[in-house]
């Protein structure tokens, strides 16, 4: 399993993501710099980490979505390579139009940093197959711009197509319909504001995030 973590100036969860990928696959991921134009040959899983790429200039994720490496990420996503975007990575995926909607300033205006309960909505995707539908899991969030927005027609469509992967069990940031994670239409791109890579060890206070990586990386017991 060859994994890659895309690193932007201002990424700050790239090493946490690398630890999670190495723990599950037994192999360190390639750390790919935003100015690179190509992913390593044979990359079969791509992670976009959390952070504040380009200082959140213009809009969160806006500059990163136009960086050279994102063209290769989009090509790989189009070929069916799994792509996971967490927090700022989710913002980048929406700005790159690989996922629908946009992430706006939290409705309460405050930065929210705590572990929150999530409801697993779709347990059939390659990222969520280790969970049971309707199961409640606990994953940390840490964001200022996590307020998911899409127009009503788009929300109806993604709900109807089972593309809402996770919902907040309680309102966290004002997100439309409490959506916390969204899949693309092919199901191989997942964006989510909560940080599964921060819940992979009992020392983190929980291991609910580990199961996402185990499912996505094909190492389910």
């Amino acid at each position: 399993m060859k994994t890659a973590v895309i690193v932007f100036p201002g990424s700050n969860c790239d090493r946490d993501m690398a630890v999670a990928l190495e723990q599950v696959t037994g192999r360190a991921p390639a750390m790919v710099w935003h100015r690179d134009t190509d992913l390593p040959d044979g990359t079969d899983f791509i992670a976009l980490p959390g952070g504040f790429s380009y200082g959140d200039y213009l809009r969160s994720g806006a500059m990163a979505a136009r960086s050279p490496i994102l063209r290769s990420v989009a090509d790989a996503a189009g070929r069916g390579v799994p792509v996971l975007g967490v927090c700022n990575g989710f913002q980048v995926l929406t700005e790159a139009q690989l996922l629908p909607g946009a992430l706006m300033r939290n409705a309460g205006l405050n930065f929210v940093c705590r572990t929150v309960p999530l409801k697993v909505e779709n347990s059939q995707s390659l990222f969520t197959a280790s969970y049971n539908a309707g199961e409640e899991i606990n994953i940390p969030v840490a964001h200022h711009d996590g307020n998911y927005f899409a127009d009503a027609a788009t929300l109806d469509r993604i709900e109807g197509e089972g593309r809402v992967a996770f919902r907040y069990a309680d309102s966290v940031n004002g997100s439309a319909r409490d959506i916390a994670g969204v899949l693309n239409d092919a199901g191989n791109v997942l964006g989510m504001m909560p940080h599964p890579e921060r819940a992979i060890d009992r020392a983190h206070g929980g291991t609910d995030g580990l199961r996402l990586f185990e499912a996505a990386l094909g190492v389910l017991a």
Partner: protein
Amino acid sequence: MKVNVYVTLKPGVLDPQGKAIHHALEGLGFGGVADVRAGRFIELDVADDTSDADLDAMCAKLLANTVIENYRIERP
């Protein structure tokens, strides 16, 4: 040539920053403010022969996120 671009949230999109500014204005004693919407103003210095189509593409591809924002281009 100086071109002004105004990026504003679409009607109906919640604007928490506008709401906070509104509350602050009320806190300063300014009554009679019905609503506040915050946007972004971008000043471009471009070649005189820049086409309307190019300016429009700059807005649609980067300066505005058309999922949530409208834009207006003002050229001299």
